[in-house]
């Protein structure tokens, strides 16, 4: 049953209307037919019975005389005549009895059925008697009427009407009724279907439009265009009116129309004023048209709304992209956290720093990203800022896989409407700045040291010269084999050592005064190399020169620069000890504003922590008595006086490794010294020399 209702429920609206109409018509037709049938069949039956009554009474009256005169022939004629003349053929039989119940005349062809005599008796005072008989072969209405002469009964007439014939008449009536009902039903169905189709067609159009709207097509137009528009009806020439030439919407949907009868409101409210408007009366339609118009208007409004949304969405996306670009391009790390310290936004630099994807970081906290200790520290610091609303600015140092890193961290509480809603953190990598700072401090320290050393050297110089002078004087007074002379000799020897130290210190501290003459750097390098070559050869140390012939003459103190090369070569040789190579390279830097001399050895190298200290006076990695620790500081001082710079890297980068056959043997990590000298002026140009490899930081 439910399946039936379900299938009915799924039928189209038109089918439902048709089905409903058919059901109503059939029900009413059947009901009316049934009533009609009942009423008419009863009328037919009553008429038939009245006829039987009339016929029986008539026969009784006509047969009275013949019974009295015993004219049997006439009686026979009477009954035969009445049966034969029956134009309806519904008289089955007729017979006449005398007062004793003897048959006087009958119409039975096959003999009189005696059983009939005793059914349907009729009393004298009754005008007639009627009885329904079922003979087994047929069903009859038996009528009996007494033949009375005054108050004396002379006989009885009986006749019977066939029930079948009456019923046939009734049935005919019923069929006519049924045919009329069916005909009316089909007619109603046809007309109803026409009506349903007009209704459903418009509803279908609405449904189709709704589907289109759902699919995103908002350019739907269901309501038919009016044959005359408002400006045509009103002869309106107001071009600026928003409804003017608007063929998509009826004027009562348009807000702010110029028509004097129009009220200023929006669509549903202004409709009250429109009801008496000529345009409305002409162009408004039935409910479905109103619905269609409303639907069109809705789609149009929706479309405008969506377009506006799209525009603002595009705007937002552009702004977001702009913001993202700015944040991602900046090398500073930028993060935004909410009050629970959950990351809301991070930039690329931060992602690179922590080595995670943005999607991993957003939504998590420091505890998911950093070590527990670090996260805990951050947490307390951040909460402090959120609570006190005091921004924080600090410099932090971290040691990672890439060495020492310095960051300048600024944490600012983000406030909105007097309420803290988050924490903005920016961290800038200031490692380079810090390195420069350290270098500056270092050079300042060297300068101070130089001043100190110079001062000390000068002060010692005079007493030293007196000691030396007197000891030499005394030496002349004693014969050489005298033990006193030997003692004085030792004093003199040690005084000479002091003199060397003082001289070195003075060289290191000297910041002015040099013979600035044009000189060939390569030539001075060759000269010094030739000088030391044969000494180094005793320890199987080879000097390989790779000199750039394009280097122009530079202004410098030839002797002091030679001292620089000498110091560097000696230093390299000391680092090697036995068996090794010293590679000397000179070349112009890319911008041709400075030259660089690199002296690389294959020695044991310098520890990274010592690299910054090797230029300090008295710093030495050599064993006691093997060096004063002044050679490199003197070199430093001389190079500084020339406006240059000296730096060292250990181990030697691959591009400065000597590849000559003599150097392919086993060797240490080595150290390379870079001496940079300006080609013009007394100051290094600001651009970096890309030929010098950077220290691994």
């Amino acid at each position, binding site marked *: 049953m439910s399946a039936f209702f379900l299938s009915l429920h799924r039928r189209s609206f038109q089918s439902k209307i048709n089905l409903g109409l058919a059901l109503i018509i059939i029900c009413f037709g059947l009901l009316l037919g049934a009533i009609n049938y009942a009423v008419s069949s009863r009328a037919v039956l009553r008429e038939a019975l009245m006829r039987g009554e009339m016929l029986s009474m008539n026969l009784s009256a006509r047969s009275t005389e013949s019974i009295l005169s015993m004219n049997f022939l006439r009686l026979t004629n009477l009954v035969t005549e009445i049966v034969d003349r029956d134009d309806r053929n519904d008289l089955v039989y007729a017979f006449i009895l005398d007062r004793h119940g003897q048959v006087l005349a009958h119409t039975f062809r096959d003999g009189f059925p005696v059983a009939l005599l005793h059914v349907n008796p009729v009393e004298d005072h009754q005008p007639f008697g009627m009885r329904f008989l079922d003979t087994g072969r047929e069903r009859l209405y038996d009528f009996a009427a007494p033949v009375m002469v005054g108050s004396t009964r002379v006989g009885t007439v009986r006749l019977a009407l066939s029930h079948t014939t009456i019923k046939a008449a009734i049935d005919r009536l019923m069929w006519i009724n049924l045919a009329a009902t069916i005909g009316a039903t089909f007619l109603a169905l046809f007309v109803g279907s026409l009506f349903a189709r007009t209704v459903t067609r418009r509803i279908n159009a609405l449904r189709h439009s709704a589907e289109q709207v759902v699919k995103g097509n908002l350019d739907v137009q269901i309501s038919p265009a009016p044959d005359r528009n408002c400006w045509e009806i009103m002869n309106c020439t107001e071009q600026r009116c928003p409804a003017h030439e608007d063929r998509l919407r009826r004027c009562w949907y348009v807000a702010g129309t110029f028509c004097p009868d129009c009220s200023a409101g929006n669509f549903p409210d202004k409709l009250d004023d429109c009801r008496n408007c000529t345009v409305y009366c002409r162009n408004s339609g039935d409910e479905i048209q109103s619905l269609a118009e409303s639907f069109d208007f809705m789609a149009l409004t929706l479309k405008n709304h969506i377009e506006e949304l799209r525009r603002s969405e595009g705007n937002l996306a552009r702004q977001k992209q702009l913001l993202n670009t700015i944040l991602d391009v900046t090398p500073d790390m930028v993060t935004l956290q909410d009050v629970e310290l959950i990351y809301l936004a991070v930039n690329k630099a931060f992602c690179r720093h922590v080595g995670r994807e943005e999607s991993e970081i957003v939504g998590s906290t420091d505890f998911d990203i950093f070590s527990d200790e670090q996260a805990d520290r951050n947490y307390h610091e951040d909460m402090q800022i959120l609570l006190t609303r005091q921004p924080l600015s600090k410099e932090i140092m971290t040691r990672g896989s890439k060495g020492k890193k310095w960051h300048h961290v600024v944490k600012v509480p983000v406030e909105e409407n007097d309420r803290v809603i988050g924490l903005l953190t920016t961290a800038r990598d200031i490692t380079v700045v810090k390195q420069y700072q350290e270098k500056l401090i270092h050079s300042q320290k060297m300068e101070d040291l130089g001043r100190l050393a110079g001062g000390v050297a000068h002060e010692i110089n*005079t*007493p030293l010269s007196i000691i030396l*002078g007197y000891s030499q004087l005394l030496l*002349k007074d004693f014969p050489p084999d005298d033990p006193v002379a030997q003692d004085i000799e030792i004093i003199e020897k040690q005084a000479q050592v002091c003199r060397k130290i003082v001289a070195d210190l003075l060289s290191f501290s000297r910041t002015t*005064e040099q013979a600035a003459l044009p000189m060939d750097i390569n030539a001075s390098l060759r000269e010094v190399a030739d000088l030391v070559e044969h000494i180094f050869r005793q320890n199987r140390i080879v000097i390989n020169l790779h000199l750039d012939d394009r280097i122009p003459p530079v202004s410098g103190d030839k002797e002091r620069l030679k001292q620089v090369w000498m110091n560097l070569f000696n230093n390299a040789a000391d680092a090697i000890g036995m068996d090794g190579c010293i590679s000397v390279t000179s070349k112009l830097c890319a911008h041709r504003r400075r030259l660089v001399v690199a002296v690389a050895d294959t020695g044991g190298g310098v520890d990274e922590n010592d690299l910054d200290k090797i230029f300090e006076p008295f710093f030495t990695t050599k064993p006691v008595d093997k060096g004063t620790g002044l050679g490199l500081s003197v070199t430093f001082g001389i190079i500084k006086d020339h406006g240059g710079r000296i730096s060292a890297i250990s181990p030697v980068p691959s591009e400065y490794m000597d590849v000559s056959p003599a150097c392919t043997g086993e060797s240490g990590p080595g150290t390379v010294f870079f001496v940079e000298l300006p080609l013009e002026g007394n100051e290094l140009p600001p651009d970096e020399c890309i030929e010098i490899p950077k220290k691994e930081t």
Partner: protein
Amino acid sequence: MANILVLDDVLDVGMMLRRILTRKGHQVHVFSDEEPAFDHARKNPVDMAILDIKLKKMSGVEVLDELKKINPKIRVMMLTGYPTLETAREALQLGADEYCVKPIDIDELEEKTSEILAKG
């Protein structure tokens, strides 16, 4: 034998120079102040002066200039613990014969002294 004037703010240095040079037979007068030295130069014939650059009131170069005014023929050796190119150049321009740096070996001093005196 020469008459030598030594001017050094440190008296001991002068005394030492005197010891060295008198051994060679020279007559040496040691001063630690500029004025007495000038007086001495004016009053006595001085063959040679050994001057320190850094003195109490004046610089050795100024003293050199002054001595040359007093006696243009005077031979001068600059002996300094503060050698600078500028003072060296200046001293040589003003007619100094030698520019030596402290501390100096006795032999070198004797040699240079005799060289200078030999010129005159």
